[in-house]
């Protein structure tokens, strides 16, 4: 169960890892952007009765556009000032989104309830909700897709080049500013997928973002910043730790265990298990 849950965490952390890997920017607003994706699916479900997974056809382009705009008009300017400026702006965006969601949807806790999100199947004596299984499958699909994209397409190769050496990429005729904006957009597209599955698995509220942001930090810190396989394994580790922690120390302590693991992982090996 923890491993399946880890799929969700890996999925959420993927966008964060991508943005960090390419731009060296810790996007503090990532959790809130994921939750924005969840609310988008929620709106589609409650107003138009569109299945959350189906609504991704709209949700992915929408968040892609949001990401593109954020990078192009806000972040790219701040890179010229200093690294702290970008961090502070991301923090500002996080606050804006949290409060926007709060105004639009009220601070109540909600869930994406569909016919299949409450069903579960049993393995031996353990009942596992289908949502957990879907999380894992979705994480695998997105990860394989992103990997092939980065390896096979021209744009993907350009992104990898820009992340390895910005100046070198510029000299080779790659428009790095544009690549950065596209990368942010792609990261947000994965956030849209993550958001939907987050909503199917857990109840969410406008302030959920921070908790998942920290979990994703944990995931990429354990797995190594910018490494995709590492992200996946990091997700498993956190997922397992959380479920086991919840089992042994009670549900309330679940998150605490995850936080402590993040702190310990950071202090022992900040660059992660698979980090460069």
């Amino acid at each position: 169960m923890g491993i399946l849950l880890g799929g969700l965490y890996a999925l959420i952390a993927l966008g964060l890892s991508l943005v960090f890997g390419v731009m060296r920017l810790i996007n503090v607003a990532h959790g809130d952007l994921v939750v924005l994706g969840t609310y988008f699916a929620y709106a589609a479900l409650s107003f138009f009765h569109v299945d959350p997974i189906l609504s991704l056809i709209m949700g992915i382009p929408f968040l892609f556009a949001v990401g593109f705009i954020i990078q192009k008009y806000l972040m790219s300017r701040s890179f010229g000032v200093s690294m702290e400026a970008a961090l502070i702006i991301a923090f500002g965006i996080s606050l804006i989104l949290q409060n926007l969601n709060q105004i639009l949807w009220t601070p109540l806790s909600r869930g994406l309830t569909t016919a299949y999100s409450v069903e579960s199947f049993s393995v031996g004596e353990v009942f596992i909700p289908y949502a957990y299984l879907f999380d894992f499958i979705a994480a695998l699909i997105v990860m394989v897709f992103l990997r092939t994209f980065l390896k096979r397409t021209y744009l993907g190769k350009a992104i990898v080049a820009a992340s390895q050496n910005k100046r070198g990429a510029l000299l080779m005729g790659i428009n790095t500013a544009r690549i950065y904006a596209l990368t942010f957009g792609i990261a947000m597209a994965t956030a849209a997928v993550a958001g939907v599955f987050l909503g199917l698995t857990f109840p969410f509220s406008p302030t959920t973002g921070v908790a998942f942001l920290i979990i994703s930090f944990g995931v990429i810190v354990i797995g190594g910043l910018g490494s995709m396989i590492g992200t996946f394994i990091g997700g498993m580790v956190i997922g397992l730790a959380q479920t086991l922690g919840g089992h042994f120390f009670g549900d309330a302590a679940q998150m605490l265990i995850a936080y402590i693991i993040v702190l310990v992982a950071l202090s022992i090996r900040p660059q992660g298990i698979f980090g460069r």
Partner: protein
Amino acid sequence: MNNTFPALWARLITVVVIILLAALPLLGAPRAWFLYLFLFFTYLAMANMWNLLAGYSGLISLCQPAFIGLAGYTVVIVTWSGLPFYLGIIGGGIVSMAFALLISIPVFRLRGIYFAIGTLVVPEALRIVFLLWKPVGGALQGAGAGYRLKGLAELSMTETYWMAFFIGMISFFLMRLILRSRLGLGLATIRDSDSTAASIGVDVFRMKLYSFVIGSLVTGMAGGIFYVYQGYIEPTSAFGIRWTMILMLSCVIGGLGIETGPLIGAAVVVFLHFYLAKYTGINLLIQGILLVIVMLLAPHGIMGSVRGLRGYRVRH
């Protein structure tokens, strides 16, 4: 000659303003002023310390709410144990200082961006700890994890005002003192370049630790004073991200890494706080937008821009 004359005037005006502010309760100013000024001074103290960390030492510390909340809880425990509240404030400062020393072991192994992440986790973890926390002995009263402070009824607004005034002034002069000392010079070198500082013999670790610990002490005391005024505490707001927001906004609006920055910034934040109070829902939304806009248009804040206009060279 030309230069010293205005400087003398500036100093004179500063002294007069400080005396006026200190004597304000005796002059019979309107009550609402004290509230504004109270918040201004507490925010000023915290913002000054954040400026010391982020602006001068290059430590983007996102764990300031941890110090504020811990100090607040210390004040609660002290007042419930029947001790006077000022012991609580001092104790709060000491507790958060001890906590800063404790977490400095893991977080100081991190640099730059990793430091920011590491410190972001701390208040979140503490929030959960305090939500789970059950007082032992049953002397404390309160629902859930929220607690009232005891025996503060006789405390007047004037006294809390003076406390805030005091901590605000301490923080301001402490900054002046630090920046003109060896520590300040060391910190400035570290901010500009870690490795250069180390190579010319600055003890990077110790310098950062000093500023982190001093920052936590003053932030904790200011937090304690705030909770003496507020009268109750609960984990979600005590360890909330709102604190970080206030500190960041004050420093960024006023000018990060500029001594007078937090003064202007804190004034703007308090003004916004009361001006936007009628629009409860969008209050933080507007602050977030403001943070982004200021960062993009005037990365050096108001004081930075003023300095730029007067023809000084600003960093970068």
